[in-house]
């Protein structure tokens, strides 16, 4: 068994090495996949320069702030709803009911919950056949692994979405949650009915100025009276920067 896995790893290193060697990247997936962009769900589309996820790119979602998992799943929901296959590697606690609520097609979402130390091999294999791969790497991810996986995504024309507080690679785009609020909870009454997240996107080079958008999940704060005629309480979290410039999509 060890021999087989080792062989897979060696093959992987060989192909990734070959693909990563020539400088710059021409989209090799172009002949293979007709469309260069994967759709992004409505509220987030305004963040992206081309209103879509470019195939071959790497998106890092910063896990430091709360709401990162929702943001990452919302990012996957666009391609998933459009028929793409998505995979999640290393997320044993991914809540599938929540994912379905965010618009993901669960039937086309493959999970490798506990890949163990072979997560780079697993993620690379998924990148070959899936349009979007959500990776939750362990804390000790090495820069070499990160570079190889990014190169593999470029070569395969799929999108690598990384959910991590510190990704050692060179991401094309970084998404983070700036703040958020909850809808529906009062002191002891109600239930969580919705949330709003302030999302910021930072690109590389010219796109390094952050662009911001609002992501509303479930019932938004400005939807008027909630269930049962009562006005749902609005919990505003500390440190929110409301409407900080940029194209706020909704």
């Amino acid at each position, binding site marked *: 068994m060890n021999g087989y896995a080792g062989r897979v790893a060696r093959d992987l290193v060989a192909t990734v090495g070959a693909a990563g060697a020539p400088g710059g990247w021409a989209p090799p997936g172009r002949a293979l996949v007709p469309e260069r962009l994967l759709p992004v769900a409505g509220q987030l589309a305004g963040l992206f320069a081309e209103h879509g996820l470019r195939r071959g790119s790497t998106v890092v979602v910063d896990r430091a702030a709360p709401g990162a998992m929702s943001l990452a799943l919302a990012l996957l929901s666009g391609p998933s709803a459009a028929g793409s296959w998505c995979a999640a590697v290393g997320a044993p*606690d991914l*809540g599938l009911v*929540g994912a379905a609520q965010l618009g993901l097609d669960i039937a086309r979402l*493959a999970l490798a919950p506990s890949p163990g130390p072979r997560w780079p091999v697993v993620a690379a294999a998924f990148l070959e056949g899936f349009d979007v791969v959500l990776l939750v790497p362990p804390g000790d991810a090495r820069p070499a692994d990160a570079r190889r996986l990014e190169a593999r995504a470029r070569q395969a024309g799929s999108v690598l979405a990384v959910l991590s507080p510190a990704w050692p690679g060179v991401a094309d785009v970084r998404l983070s949650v700036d703040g958020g609020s909850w809808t529906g909870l009062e002191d002891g009454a109600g*239930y969580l009915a919705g*949330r709003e997240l302030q999302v910021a996107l930072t690109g590389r080079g010219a796109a390094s100025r952050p662009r911001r958008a609002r992501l509303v999940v479930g019932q938004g704060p400005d939807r008027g009276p909630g269930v*049962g005629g009562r006005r749902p309480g609005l919990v505003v979290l500390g440190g929110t920067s409301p409407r900080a410039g940029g194209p706020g999509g909704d």
Partner: protein
Amino acid sequence: MATSRARALFAFCPDWPVLATGRPPSEEVAVVQANRVVAASPAARVAGVVVGMRRREAQSACPGLAVVARAPALEARAWEPAVAAVEEVAPGPEVLAPGQLALGTRGPSRYFGGDAALAARVAGLVEAALPEAWRGCCRVGVADGLFTAGLAARSARPGGPLVVPGGGSAGFLAPMPVGALCTEDLQAVVGARPAELAELVSLLGRLGVRTMGDFAALPAPVVLARFGATGARAHRLAAGLASRPVTGREPPPDWSVDAELSPPAENVQSVVFVARVLAEQLHDRLAGSGLVCTRLAVVAGTEQGGTLRRSWRHDGALSASAIAERARWQLEGWALANQLSGVEGEGTGGPGAGRVTRLALVPEEVRPDGHQLGLWGADAGARDRAARAMARVQAVLGPAGVVTGVLQGGRDYLDQVRLVPWGEPREPLRPGGPVTGPSEPATGAPRPARATGRAKDGPPPWPGRLPGLAPCVVHPVPVPVQLLGSQGEPVTVSSRGLLGPVPAYLVVGHRGRRQAVTAWAGPWPLEERWWAHQARRRARVQVVAEDGRAYLLAREHQEWWAEASYD
């Protein structure tokens, strides 16, 4: 007419429905269907139980009677060994009903030296396949035509086959009453509606035609004019003429492939190599008939003479490489469980381990290869690419390493998802998937909806499910938390479901920071399976901490746990 000379053998076991129940003839048993007795054991018949009786009448006639509901599938299964035994010596036995079989005798009789010898042989084979206590109940008849053979079998004594010589059918039938046309066991042979036949027989009786000979003596055109097609058919049967030839059953095709390993394989890798070749063979053989395999059995024979067998089910069609993969997983699994020797040098196998001497791949379920394309053609392509990627990951992590989720019914978020290893059928364990509209909670009050006045046939409502936002992080193992009141005292839930002090602080994990609670709701009690050992009693609250994270907490066994977080 050619078919009139087609000699046939008819063998049957009376009381087959009783025999199939597996009870000895000495027990008083009646098999009932639709409240009527359809078969009774000899002991029950002696006590006065008659076929056609009502169940209650039968029970009053024989107080010790065991009443069994008819099980046609069981009857068919029980008959199968006898048919298979006969098939060994004569091709194409036809099963007319469970407990009856017919055989064209032309070839076999000549081989075994005459009809009598063949009949004795068949009787012996059938008897051998029956339970000990029922030996000697099989009756066999041979005659021109199936119908006459059937009546001959009914007249035969157990153990003494009755052979009606060629051309003697009319003479054999002549003294029989016309009622024999209605013989229940022979309805399949006569090929007319029972009600019509019964009417015909009754009419013949009233017309003074009492025996088959009388009926056969009537001129055929007159019979046809007076009694129609059914009458004409019965007339020919009574004259010992027309009877349909036996149409033998076709033995089910055997698609399995196997290979002998000589000398026995020293390690699993070499067996895997053989498995790969077999997989190609099997796939080609099936593809040649336009079939694909959806269930596969991997069978390995070991030196010690043992046989290991395991079935693999697959949702879609198994490709050649998928068949080979499954064979490899199974062989490695057996080797790891010390049932086979040798995984690449490591582990020499336990005392019961043996080297593989024979490997077979048996497709247990095949279906026609119909590609089901999605609405868009690209859909199938994407699925194929994804399937290949998942197969590669399974090669690294093992079959259970890649899963897909199926939403199903359940009260908490862990129950509402079933993770299915890729390749296995995606079926929910519990009906009633969760409602997944993001703004759906308009239907539910803050308190989980009650299950009242709901249509019986709809999916179950799963009371206790939380409405509103579903968490994106569900902890497979709940995380211990502390929920404290404003004075730092633990928050409790009373047995009546009332929350103790108002939650003010939250500590997540064992070494977490103490944070203020900015909002909360609940408690929602949840009692599951209170009638069983797996009873769980919980009270759940939703809590938002000051860092902006929301949690679904549950109190169980006097402790607070974070079941999920709204990350």
